[in-house]
């Protein structure tokens, strides 16, 4: 167990002021939060635990990937944004946040993505709100001179949000929608399979995936079958985000192939997809 890692991390609990809350659609919101101390610590793919209101119902905080790092004119990170899809009580409260509201925001938390270096290609596979952890990764890859490709899937074109932010970084975005209203009809695995087929011989790819569990599993299977590695960002029902409660476990395989429950808040949320016992993963 990663005791030394635990001892050296220093998250902060910020009273973060809402700078803006933009409704992207009926159920998607982009919430900008002022939190300079926290923002300065964020690494790609990390998350924060947010309590959008005071009071006891709902009681617990909710995990959100850090979407963007908000930067001042001098380039310094002064805040973060989160991409929230309304699915329950807490995300409904997030949708209702107003400029000037203050939320408790604890982070950054979790094991970050490891950006690969050229000539290894970086492909990001996002399903719906699973886009959230990829902006920080994309910025890191672009800064390292290894711009990634984003495969971005959703039910329909209206559920594809914020892709322009990636395109502005010079990133190629490949779309897939289940109803065919934008890009390939079906799941992101279809254009990814084509991209693998078109890959020059000997070229290595690191795939990063986040989205619904069946989608991540399919992307991982495809990638591993082609001889590459896929890192996935797993979200489980989480109590504290700090390793205190042992709620958010996933079954990870050891070298002998035996599964053990590990806390996705500490050992993850980013895992090498080959180490996950996908059959034991719910949803």
């Amino acid at each position, binding site marked *: 167990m990663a005791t030394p890692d635990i001892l050296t991390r220093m*998250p902060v*609990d910020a009273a973060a002021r809402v700078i803006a809350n933009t409704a992207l659609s009926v159920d998607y919101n982009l919430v900008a939060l002022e939190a300079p101390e926290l923002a300065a610590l964020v690494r790609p793919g990390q998350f924060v635990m947010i*309590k959008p209101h005071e009071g006891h119902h*709902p*009681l617990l905080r909710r995990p959100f990937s850090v979407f963007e790092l908000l930067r001042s004119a001098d380039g310094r990170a002064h805040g973060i944004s989160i991409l929230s899809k309304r699915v329950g009580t807490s995300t409904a409260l997030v949708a209702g946040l107003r400029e000037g509201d203050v939320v408790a925001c604890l982070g950054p938390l979790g094991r970050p993505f490891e950006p690969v270096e050229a000539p290894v290609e970086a492909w990001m596979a996002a399903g719906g709100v699973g886009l959230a952890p990829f902006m920080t990764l994309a910025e890191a890859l672009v800064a390292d001179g290894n711009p990634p490709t984003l495969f971005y899937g959703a039910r329909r074109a209206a559920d594809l949000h914020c892709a322009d932010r990636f395109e502005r970084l010079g990133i190629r975005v490949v779309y897939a929608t289940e109803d065919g209203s934008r890009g390939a009809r079906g799941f992101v695995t279809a254009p990814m399979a084509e991209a693998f087929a078109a890959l020059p011989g000997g070229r290595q790819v690191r795939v990063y995936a986040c989205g619904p569990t069946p989608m991540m599993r399919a992307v991982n299977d495809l990638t591993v079958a082609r001889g590459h590695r896929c890192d996935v960002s797993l979200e489980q*029902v989480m*109590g504290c985000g700090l390793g205190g409660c042992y*709620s958010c*476990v996933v079954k990870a395989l050891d070298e002998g192939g035996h599964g053990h429950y590990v806390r996705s808040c500490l050992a993850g949320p980013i895992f090498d997809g080959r180490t996950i016992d996908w059959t*034991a993963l719910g949803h």
Partner: protein
Amino acid sequence: MDLSVQIGRLRLVNPFIAASGCFGYGVEYAGLLDLASLGGVCVKGLFLNEREGHPPQRIVETPAGMINAIGLQGVGVHRFVEEYLPPLRAAGATVFVNVCGTSIDEYAEVSRILSDHEGVAAIELNISCPNIKEGGIQFGCSLAGTHDVVSAVRKVTTLPVIPKLTPNVTAPASFARAAEEAGADAVSLVNTFLALAIDVETRRPKISNGMGGLSGPAIRPIAVRMTYECASAVKIPVIGMGGITSIGDALEFLIAGASAVQVGTANFVNPLIWNDLRTGLADYMTRHQLSSVSQIVGTLDMKR
């Protein structure tokens, strides 16, 4: 201000202890707060060997609370003393170890191993986890079982022995008395309330284990009542817990007769709650012109 309290011969810098199962092995929090600033850190329950625990989903939120069935996933006592106890000692934590067992022998063996290591301040006996089939609550729901576990552990250790009592019995105070008669140095209560939340669409329980333990503010008034009953029934100190989220909540337990309190679920919501509790207690003592926390303990006036 001196916020210290006495639990038998154990002196705590303040009455606020992190509750078992809600604070990992303590080291998880070392980067966020000074573990020595807590009255105590009660680490996650330990058996002799490692345990995998229950499949997820392990928790679900309920009004002003949550139901959990983690299943006592844990590293076992051997890995604990080798990997986790040294950094806890280095951080200056007052370490309470929550001891589990599937048999009386296992409780005694885990306790004996802990007693052989420097850095353990007290043993809390988990005879009240509602979420595992074998061990635990089968002892905690029987007066004879409670007596036998406490007596067996009492024989193998000189550390303070603190059985943690279940609220899932008619009269917790009789269990506190059984523990006292068996040689316990203190009792802690309450563990969680056995509970069930149902997904009405699938007509299945919301967590994988089916039933689980309810914690959080929802249980607090019942826990305060039980703390009062137990503190009135025994001479040994009582450590109270159940849904504490503020200094006001903690004071209720102290006034009801608890010499110290544990905070669990609220730590998930606010891991820095300890600072607020210390400040709040000092403010209260100043306002009421008190020089010692003991002047609060058991001062409930039940006269109408």
